[in-house]
C-alpha cells in the first residue's frame, strides 16, 4: 500500500504552519477583535505621545473657564479648575492603562497558579489555599488597601500590587473550579500515562482548558481595576493629585453630575471604550486559541 490517507483533495492544501502563525491567521480574521486591538494600540500610542499631542498641559488651571462644556478650544470641555479634560484623558491613559493591565496580569498570574495547584492537588493544599482565598475575599477592599499603604507606602506601583491582591482570590477560585473538572479528562490521564509530571501536566494540559474563563475575566477585570485604583488614590495610595487618572477624574466629577455632566461623561467614556476594547480583544484571543474554531 502506498498511501493510506483518503483525502487526497485535502492533502494538496496542507502546508506547514507554525502555531504562532496559525494563531495570528485566526485572530486576523476576527475583524471585531482586530479593530479592538487597533483601538488599544492607538490608545497606547496616544498615552505615550501625550506630551506631544495633548492640546494643553493637563495640570494647567484656567479660572476663567471653569466647567465649560465642549467647545472649539476645549473639545470635551474643562473641569472644575478649568483644566482641559481631553488633555487629562490623554495623560491619564498612561496611569490608568498601566494600572489596569499590570495589576490584572500580576494578580492573574498569581491567582491562576494558586487555583491550578489547589484544584489539581486537592486535599489539604486545596483547603489551605482556598481558605486563604476566602479570607482575602472577605477582607474589605478599603481595609486591605489601607493596610497596604501602611506597609508599602504610597505610590503608583503599590497601587498595582494592591489591586493585584484584590484579583488573586477570584482568579484562584475560577481556575480551581475548572481544574477540578478538567483533571478528570481522559487526555489528562493519557498525558500521565506518557509520563508527564504533575507540574507540566498542570501547565500544559489543564491550564489551557481554564484559559477561556481566565481571558474573559482578565478582560473584564481591567475595567474594574481602573476604577479600584481610583478609589485607592482617594485614600492616599496611588496617583497623587493632580495626576490625571481616569477613575479619579470620574469620581471627582461626580459632584457635578447634575450641573456639568461632561466632566464625568468623557472619562467614563474613555473607561467604557477601553473596557469594551479589552473585552472584544479577549474574545478574539479566546477564539483564536480555540482549536475547534477555524
Amino acid at each position, binding site marked *: 500500500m502506498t498511501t493510506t490517507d483518503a483525502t487526497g483533495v485535502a492533502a494538496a492544501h496542507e502546508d506547514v504552519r507554525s502555531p504562532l502563525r496559525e494563531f495570528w491567521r485566526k485572530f486576523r480574521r476576527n475583524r471585531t477583535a482586530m479593530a479592538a486591538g487597533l483601538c488599544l494600540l492607538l490608545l497606547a500610542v496616544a498615552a505615550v505621545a501625550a506630551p506631544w499631542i495633548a492640546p494643553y498641559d493637563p*495640570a494647567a*488651571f484656567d*479660572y476663567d473657564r*471653569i*466647567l465649560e462644556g465642549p467647545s472649539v478650544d476645549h473639545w470635551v470641555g474643562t473641569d*472644575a*479648575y478649568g483644566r482641559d479634560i481631553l488633555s487629562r484623558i490623554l495623560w491619564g491613559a498612561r496611569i490608568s492603562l498601566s494600572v489596569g493591565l499590570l495589576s490584572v496580569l500580576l494578580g492573574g498570574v498569581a491567582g491562576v497558579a494558586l487555583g491550578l495547584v489547589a484544584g489539581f492537588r486537592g486535599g489539604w493544599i486545596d483547603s489551605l489555599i482556598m481558605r486563604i482565598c476566602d479570607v482575602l475575599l472577605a477582607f474589605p477592599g478599603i481595609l486591605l488597601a*489601607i493596610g497596604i*499603604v*501602611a506597609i508599602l507606602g*504610597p505610590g503608583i506601583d503599590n497601587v498595582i500590587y494592591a489591586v493585584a491582591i484584590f484579583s488573586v482570590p477570584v482568579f484562584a477560585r475560577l481556575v480551581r473550579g475548572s481544574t477540578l473538572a478538567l483533571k478528570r479528562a481522559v487526555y489528562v490521564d493519557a498525558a500521565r500515562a506518557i509520563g508527564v509530571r504533575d507540574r507540566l501536566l498542570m501547565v500544559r494540559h489543564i491550564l489551557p482548558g481554564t484559559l477561556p474563563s481566565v481571558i474573559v475575566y482578565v478582560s473584564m477585570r481591567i475595567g474594574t481595576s481602573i476604577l479600584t485604583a481610583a478609589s485607592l*488614590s*482617594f*485614600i*492616599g495610595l496611588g496617583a*497623587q*493629585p*493632580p495626576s490625571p487618572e481616569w477613575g479619579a477624574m470620574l*469620581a*471627582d466629577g*461626580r*459632584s*457635578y*453630575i*447634575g*450641573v456639568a455632566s461632561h466632566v464625568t461623561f468623557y472619562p467614563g467614556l474613555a473607561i467604557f471604550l477601553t473596557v469594551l476594547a479589552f473585552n472584544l480583544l479577549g474574545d478574539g484571543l479566546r477564539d483564536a486559541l480555540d482549536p475547534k474554531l477555524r
Partner: protein
Amino acid sequence: GPAFAAKDLVVGMPDNITTLDPADINDTLSQSASRTMLQGLFGFDKDMKLVPLLAESFTVNDTATEYTYRLRKNVVFHDGTPFNAQAVKTSFDRLADPANRLKRQSLLAMLAETVVVDDYTITLKLSQPFGALNNNLAHPGAMIHSPKALETYGKDIGRHPVGTGPYKFVSWEADTLKVEKNDKYWKQGLPKIDHVTLKSVPENGSRIAMLQTNEAQFIYPLPPEMVKMVEGNQALEIIDAPSIIARYVAMNTMKKPFNDPRVRQALNYAIDKNAYAKVVYRGYAGPLDSAIPSKLGFHVTQPSQYTYDLAKAKALLAEAGYPNGFEAEMFGRNSTNFIRGMQFVQQQLSQIGVKLTVTPLEAGVETARVWGVEKPEDATVQMQYGGWSASTGDADWGLRPLLWGKGFPPKFFNVAYYKNDTVDAAIETGIATADTAKRAEAYRVAQEQIWKDAPWIFLGVENLLAGKSKKLTGFYYVADGGLQMEEADLQ
C-alpha cells in the same frame, strides 16, 4: 382639611447619627439631632449668640472660679420628671467625672464641685479660673438629661434620650431618627411640627433628589457645585449662611523653610483668595481675615491683608534665600473637597516655584501621621491643609487648640508647631478671666501677632449651604453647622 393635617418634616443629612447622648458626641450632626430633644443651661441662637435656655440668669466671681445660676421653673422632662437643680447636678457631675469616660468631659474638666443651693439655684465651683464657662455650657455636650432616664438606661442613654426639648424621641433605626412634638414644651406655642424625621442620605445627588421630590423639606449640606440644581426649582430655596469653619494650610514652623516667617508670608501672598473661593467653593466662601473667622467672639479684622501679589511673594522668597522656590509635601484629608483645595494651593504656589506634593490621607492614617506624633522633632508634617470649627463659638477654642505653644500634638492640634510667647500669654490671659473687656484685649493681641507671623496660609471661611422647601420656615442652619428647628413650621 389641610389645617389639621399632621405636619411632618423630613430632614436629609449627610451622615449617620452616632449617639444621642450629647455628653458623648463629637460630631455636629449628632449634636443637631440631640438638640431637638435636649437642652442645656445656655444655647446659641441662629446667629451664634449665646442665649440662656434652662438658666435664667447667672453670677460669677472675679477670678472666674465660681458661677451661680438661677434655673427656669415649670419645666419638665419628657418622662414627666421635673427639671431642677438636682437634675443639673446629676448631668454635670456625670459629665465631669473622668471615670465615666465621656467624650465631652473636657467641657467641665475644671469643675471642682456642684452645689445645689436650692431647687432652682446651682453653683459651679471650678478648680482653676475659666472665663468661657457659659460658652462651654452652651455647647451641646453640656445638655441635660432626665436624671430618671440616666438611672434607667445607664450606658444605653444614647439610644433613649429624654430631655426638655421641643421634640420627644420616637425611634432610631440604622439611619433614621424620628422625633415627635413635645406637647408640654415650656416655650409657648412651640413646636409647630408634629413629626420630624432625620434621615441620613450620604450621596449629595440623592439628597438633592429628595428635596426635589419633596421627600425631604430640608437638606444639608448642599455642595456649592450643586447649588444650581436647587436654584432652578421654584418650590425650593437655598440657605447660604456664613460659618465658623476656617480653612487654612498650617506650615510646620519648626522645619525648614517654614521656620522663616518671610517664606510663610510669601506663600500667603502667592494665593489668590478670591480664586480660592471661586474654584473650591464656587464662590460660597468668605475671606479668613484673621486667625479666627469673623463669626467667632472677639474676632478682629486684620488691617493689612495678604492680598494676592506674586511679585511680592517672589521677592520675599528671594529675601529668605529661596529665589527659585522649593519643594514640599502637603498633607490633608482625602475628601473630595479637601483634595480640591489642596490641588488649588498646589497650583497657586507653583507660580512662585514652590513645588508641592499633595498627599491625601485617610482619617486613621492622618491620626497616626499627624495627630499622634509624640515629639515635635518626629513630626513628618511640613504642610497640613486643614479646617477648624470652634464649636464653642468663642475665640478661645478658635486659638488655643491650634496655635498655643503648649498645644503641640498629641496634646492639641498645633500642627504648625507655632510657639510665640506673646500669643501664649494672651491666650492664657483670655481664658483666665470672665471679664469681657480683658478677654477682648487679649485676643486682639494674639490675633495681631499670629497674623504677622503667618504660621498658616489663611485661605477662607466657607459658607454653610443648605437647600430647603419654601414652605419650611423658622428652620435655621447655624454657623457651627448645627440645626435649630424648634421654631420650624410648614406652610
